[in-house]
């Protein structure tokens, strides 16, 4: 399998254009090839993750009639309710890192006046857009939750694709109160009806309600996974909770999302049956990880440390009422712990440290991510109160050149030595 993956990567790196991407997706996304590809994964979750991801990305590239770009932290139930096919440039930037093409997309962004100070998720995505590597969307939807780069970058994409009148910025208020909910709910409702009108279709509230019901089901399985992970000490090979960003956001409200998470729960539960509990030191991971090949998690394993949970997988929203779709989605957005003051995030970190019986915390300080790195001081102080060590690991999720292998290795190993001697 490693050989096939490397061949695909090499092909893409050598022929980096939309035509090659479409050709690859057509081939990989065809049945039974995609089924065969799936059998190469030892983990069921990874198998379904890859198959579903390929199918969704293929759909985005080969049929953009309903394509919409979306930023992270959006309620993708809205997309599914509108019959839109979501494409997440920020997540695809992670793919550019994994496929070894981010050096080219970042170079393109650099020559396009994108500041070196800007986070590389957005820089790589912007470079990819400028290179015409991403499919052209019909709509662009983003929000101001957490990340301020998204709204600016996505607006530039709208200009580039000449769809400025189909660019929607959801303004999520800072404070939770009755008027905030009304304001947000009204925006979501407007977007729903306006996009339906632009698509020249009758607004299908029934489909939106169905998406919300599916989202509730997704939430149910995600909660079960998060609960079972409190006790897990054995994981399938290469399982990493940070690999599920794409489905966690974009498949919320779809049948595929429910299927994947149901399979993941079953796999994790079954994997630990009849297996002795391993003695591990439990690590909580904050923010995201480098999406290019790296040895961070291998180093942790070597020292008997395991990332048992990631803040990005925390289910922060309540079950939604499908009969009040816009209010429910508004509540979901407002309850995101990355919205509003840092206290919300601190409370979640505190809770996760307790619930997962954490021995150490790693905060990956991704270059340019001010919404996360701005809180480092108070996060460090708060974690100290639990008498456990925290490693603030400077690095870059997408640009391998902005990270030194040796420096990362020394820091992770130094931290692992501290945790394992504790």
């Amino acid at each position: 399998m490693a050989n096939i993956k490397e061949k695909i990567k090499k092909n893409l790196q050598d022929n980096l254009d939309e035509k090659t991407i479409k050709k690859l997706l057509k081939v990989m996304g065809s049945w039974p090839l995609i089924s065969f590809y799936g059998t190469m994964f030892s983990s069921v979750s990874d198998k379904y993750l890859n198959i579903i991801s390929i199918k969704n990305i293929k759909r985005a590239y080969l049929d953009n009639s309903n394509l919409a770009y979306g930023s992270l932290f959006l309620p993708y139930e809205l997309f599914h309710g509108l019959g839109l096919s979501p494409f997440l440039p920020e997540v695809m930037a992670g793919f550019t890192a994994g496929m070894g093409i981010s050096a080219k997309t970042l170079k393109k962004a650099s020559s396009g006046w994108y500041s070196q100070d800007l986070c590389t998720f957005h820089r790589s995505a912007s470079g990819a857009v400028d290179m015409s590597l991403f499919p052209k969307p019909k709509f662009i939807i983003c929000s101001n939750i957490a990340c301020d780069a998204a709204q600016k970058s996505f607006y530039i994409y709208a200009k580039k694709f000449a769809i400025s009148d189909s660019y929607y910025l959801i303004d999520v208020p800072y404070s939770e109160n009755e008027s905030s909910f009304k304001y947000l709910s009204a925006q979501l409702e407007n977007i729903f009806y306006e996009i339906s009108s632009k698509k020249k279709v009758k607004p299908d509230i029934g489909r939106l309600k169905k998406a919300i019901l599916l989202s509730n089901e997704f939430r149910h399985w995600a909660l079960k996974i998060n609960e079972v992970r409190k006790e897990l000490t054995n994981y399938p090979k290469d399982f990493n909770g940070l690999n599920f960003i794409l489905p966690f956001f974009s498949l919320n409200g779809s049948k595929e999302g429910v299927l994947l998470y149901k399979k993941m729960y079953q796999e994790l539960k079954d994997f630990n049956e009849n297996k002795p509990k391993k003695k591990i030191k439990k690590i909580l991971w904050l923010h995201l990880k480098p999406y290019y090949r790296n040895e961070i998690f291998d180093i942790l394993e070597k020292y008997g440390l395991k990332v048992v949970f990631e803040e990005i997988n925390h289910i922060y929203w309540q079950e939604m009422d499908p009969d009040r779709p816009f209010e429910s989605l508004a509540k979901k957005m407002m309850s995101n712990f990355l919205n509003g003051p840092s206290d919300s995030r601190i409370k979640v970190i505190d809770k996760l440290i307790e619930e997962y019986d954490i021995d150490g915390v790693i905060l990956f300080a991704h270059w340019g991510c001010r919404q996360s790195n701005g809180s480092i001081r108070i996060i460090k102080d708060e974690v100290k109160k639990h008498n456990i060590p925290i490693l603030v690991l400077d690095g870059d999720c997408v640009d391998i050149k902005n990270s030194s292998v040796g420096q990362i290795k020394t820091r992770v190993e130094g931290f692992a030595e501290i945790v394992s001697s504790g």
Partner: protein
Amino acid sequence: MITCGIDLGSVSTEVLILEKNTTENNILSYVIIPTGSNTKEASARCLASACEKASLKKDDINAIVATGYGRVNVAFADKNITEISCHAKGVLEKFSEVRTIIDIGGQDSKVIKIDELKKPIDFLMNDKCAAGTGRFLEVMAKVLEIDISNFGEIFLSTDESVDITSTCTVFAESEIVSLIGQGAEKKTIIRGLIYSIADRIISMVERIGLEEPVCLTGGVAKNIGVKKAIEEKLGIDLLVPDEPQITGALGAAILAQKI
């Protein structure tokens, strides 16, 4: 039991051979050499030299731990452990009550916090930028055409200093040239350079949280000016081992006793 610690850094390599008897550790020998471009050769040569100095053969050594950036290149080491753990161990062997360690090496600097149980609990490293390291002083010594070993005494010889505003070594170099051209005295420039290193270090110490006693190690600790500048800015006295450059290797040799 005879153990060996190898600290393979980017600028220098230190090897230390240690004998443990029932009550204490005894340093049999240590050697410090420039690493050069061939790390494998440097570590082997340094070990051979340390063995000769201790009148030992390599086979007499029970266990070897490698540390430093080049630790993975020491093929004959039984284990490699980061410089965080090794420096902590080495310093505590000399000064058992230390709670903060400042290590200023050739190309990196670090601050390590030790708890009341004598374990490292937090650390900060600056290895992305030469400012605040020995390399910074080496570059400036070349520009000033003054032997770097004289910097400490020159620092002490004057109370006046020039502010060096550039944080980058390359830009600071240009700034020095400019200052010389404007007629600034070299001794005031040197004092300013040392203060700028001290400022970088203080910033790291404050981020970790200062707790006394504090120990200064690394090759740059031999510079009396740097020691004085940090003491002045922190308002405390620093402990400095007799040979501050070998604490990493010492700690590695002690940790090798557990193999």
